[in-house]
């Protein structure tokens, strides 16, 4: 192997790593705020990618149906929790949070999809369709369990992944799809051609990280989320609505998942179940960061991407095996440095 190939692989690895970093950050965020290990994160990636691919060919994406299903379930769950005191005010709030947003998004999708507005508006539309699924999923699956143990939440998360994968198959069908790239122009740095899509991925990853940094450091909402992450009870005592924090964390996670999907849709063919494996690579990175450290998770994500790129060159059929085996030495190190065996939760 010569330097060119190595550099090429590294560049490829960093590109993938940037995607995994986005996912890892979302996972750490959701875990910190809600203690949910967001296994269905991968399905948001699938949805983002397939939505963009369908918009690309001028079809109304299946995610619209999926969004309506989830919003409907969330509406039922919310209405059921208010069954004792179902006032006009409650009904109004339900319509505002659970009926209007999905309907508006669906109407937009129906109206805009056949127009084929171009890559960037389509990408934004795809994220707008997928992102609201996050809070609705939280409302349906996790909010009723918000006081449960991490283990119970994890099993529920796996259940959600199971269901969503099936629903993705239902709404998208078994065929894989690919979208046209966001940025077509690229350039060559020395011997390495850098595609426009890679640049878009780097820009998005760096931009989003900076955005999140500002959001958590500068805004009241971001601080409320951090407060929830540190201490749920304390946050509630000072007036933070933890259910809202949870929904917000899921909104951000779903949006980041969708964005990742939009970014990879032009690079690889995405099937209804592809997201799971992509999401899990984000997981490997998040676990390296102990599910708490953002910088460690982001760094580890790039490492995972590079390992994957190198593995696909040397032993392509063992690629996934090698990537998921990374977790074992990581767990070993964490295990040897662990100072306690008690579970805090």
């Amino acid at each position, binding site marked *: 192997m010569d330097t060119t190939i190595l550099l090429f692989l590294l560049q490829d690895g960093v590109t993938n790593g940037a995607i995994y970093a986005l996912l890892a950050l979302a996972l750490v965020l959701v875990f910190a705020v809600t203690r949910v290990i967001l296994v269905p994160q991968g399905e948001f990636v699938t949805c983002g990618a397939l939505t963009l691919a369908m918009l690309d060919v001028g079809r109304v994406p299946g995610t619209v149906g999926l969004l309506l299903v989830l919003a409907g379930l969330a509406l039922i769950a919310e209405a059921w929790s208010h069954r004792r005191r179902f006032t006009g005010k409650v009904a109004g709030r339900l319509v505002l949070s659970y009926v209007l947003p999905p309907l508006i998004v669906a109407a937009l999708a129906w109206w805009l999809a056949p127009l084929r507005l171009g890559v960037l508006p389509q990408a934004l539309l795809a994220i707008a369709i997928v992102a609201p699924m996050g809070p609705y999923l939280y409302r349906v699956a996790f909010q009723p369990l918000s006081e449960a143990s991490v283990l119970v939440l994890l099993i529920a998360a796996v259940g959600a992944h199971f*269901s969503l994968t099936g629903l993705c198959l*239902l709404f998208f069908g078994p065929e894989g799809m690919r979208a046209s790239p966001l940025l077509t122009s690229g350039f060559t740095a020395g011997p390495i051609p850098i595609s426009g899509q890679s640049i878009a991925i780097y820009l998005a990853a760096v931009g989003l990280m900076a955005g999140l940094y500002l959001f958590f450091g500068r805004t009241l909402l971001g601080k409320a989320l951090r407060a929830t992450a540190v201490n749920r009870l304390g946050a509630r005592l000072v007036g933070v609505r933890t259910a809202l924090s949870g929904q917000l964390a899921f909104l951000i996670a779903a949006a980041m998942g969708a964005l990742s999907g939009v970014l990879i849709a032009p690079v690889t063919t995405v099937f209804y179940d592809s997201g799971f494996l992509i999401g899990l690579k984000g997981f490997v990175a998040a676990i390296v960061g102990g599910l708490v450290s953002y910088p460690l998770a982001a760094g580890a994500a790039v490492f995972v991407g590079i390992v994957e790129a190198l593995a696909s060159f040397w032993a392509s059929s063992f690629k996934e*095996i090698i990537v998921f085996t990374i977790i074992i030495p990581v767990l070993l190190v964490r*295990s*040897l440095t662990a100072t306690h*065996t*008690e*579970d805090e*939760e």
Partner: protein
Amino acid sequence: MSPTRPMSKAAMSTGRWGRAALAGLIVAAALLPVMPGVPVFWVTLLNNMGLGALVAIGLVVLTGVGGLTSFGQAAFCGFGAFTTAVLTTRYGWSPWATLPVALAITGLAALVLGLLTVRLSGHYLPLGTIAWGLSLYFLFGELELFHRHDGITGIPPFNLAGWDLYDSRGIYYVIWISVLLAALATRNLLDSRTGRAIRALRGGALAAESFGVSTMRVKLIVFVYAALLAGVAGWLYAHMQRAVNQTPFGINAGIEYLLMAVLGGAGHVGGAILGAGLVTLLKDQLQRILPSLLGAKGNYETVVFGALLILLLQTAREGLWPRLAALSSGMSRGARRKVPSPLVGRDGVGGNPKLGREGFPPPLTPPHKGGGESRGDPAQRSKQIEPLPARTMPAAGEPLLVLTKARKTFGGLVAVNDVSFAVRAGEIVALIGPNGAGKSTIFNLVTGVLPPTAGEIAFKGERISGRSPQAIAARGIARTFQHVNVQPGMSVLENVALGAHLRGAKGAAASIARLDRAEEARLLDETARQIERMGLTAQMHRPAGSLSLGQLRILEIARALALDPVLLLLDEPAAGLRHFEKRELAATLAGLRAQGLTILLVEHDMSFVMGLADRIVVVDFGTRIAEGPPAQVRSDPAVIEAYLGGVA
């Protein structure tokens, strides 16, 4: 059943009915495949249920009882299946001969993977299982030895006395006998010394560690046990299908197994079988109905399974089995106390606020029916069973526990500041001081829960500082907890028996084979003796969660006594007790002292301490400020200042 009959009779006849029903069920199950008119398809479905049940029983022990979980059980099935497939097709082994090898390989894999994760907090194990579950799944599809994605075909069927069991009717018996054996083995395992340690894993791990249970070892045992059952299922599967490829060993299958355990009731062996049955049936039906309903091919049953899993966790976390059991016993006994499942744990919703932790784990094994009754009767008991050997107590007055400049700092905070004092054999020493003085930290240093930053702690002349809680317990130091730390779902007898853990030696394998019965009888006999000594005999078979706080404190002392300690450490034993209960406790402790036991206690109730203790050590802000007999300490100006703030 007449409602005027005594409870126990009603309960006994329910048991008899239950046993009759079980026997009937087994006979019906045995006859089913040979009955004319039963379609082969049914038998195949039952075979699949049996395989699922085997894996789910393992998950019952792992998740429902042990509080760990795994999404990777299907991969362990794969180890069993591929091992036998390779050995029978390549090397011509008999299918029966491959079982030990299949088990050894599965067990070894589980041991390695378990070692990596048991030290970590709860969610790393399931996350790890997802990752290696996928890794192994891809590996199974890539190995040349396993013929890659094509898999291995032409695996021979089981052969029984010259008959090849090609037919699903034949293998039906092999599968369901395995399930029965697994259920029996699991029951035996849980109803034993190791079983108590497994059941003490969730929530009360600190208590278990203080009585010499190595929780890591127990977690490993449970994990390997669950993997072995999955390995057996894989081994059976290979000879049922007579072909294996990677497909059935993926993560989705692993999730389905977990669904079986959760649906049936993750704390019950019966629940595992029920859950496996329902999930298998449901899957079969859904795979038939959904695609035609939706007009497309695909595994749409995952939509229903995932939703079902979430719904169960939200509304019926204890699964169906406890409801079924309540329904059947409700016919004769009326409403039963609701027993939330182990998965309810840690959310505090169903938990007893008095206990401040877990919800009640379910009663896994009936509290020793039959032979158990004789244990309640001390006269009958001691004649038959040889008592456990007891430690010889050191001569009174000999220095037993010596702290020399023991120091503990947490960052900048000096919690224990060079504290020195000694406890002599046969005396009661009270450690007192205002809140936050460092009393509990001193206890934690002595019992090995925390290592001292500096200084030395010696017991019987041997340095014990820095040793593990288990090692210190083994030397004869037993403790109680300031915040009561018992397993509310286990009976008083079982809770106290946990204290006698170190006095037994039989492990998991012996309990599965029931080779531990003699030792178990002696352990329980000793346990009953300590319960009697503390006056809790009437409550012996009740779940600890139903006791009052005062009784729980007594239970903790009984559990500590079951260790056969030389030194008893009591952390606020009188807190929350009523006046007359305190008097009784003081009399009991004085009685223990008279029998040669040494006691070090932390207490706030001055009248309790003054009347009982031989000597008092006073600490304030981590420093020893006074030591001496009660009368002297009471008039010590430094003590008065610490308690009353100076000019009093």
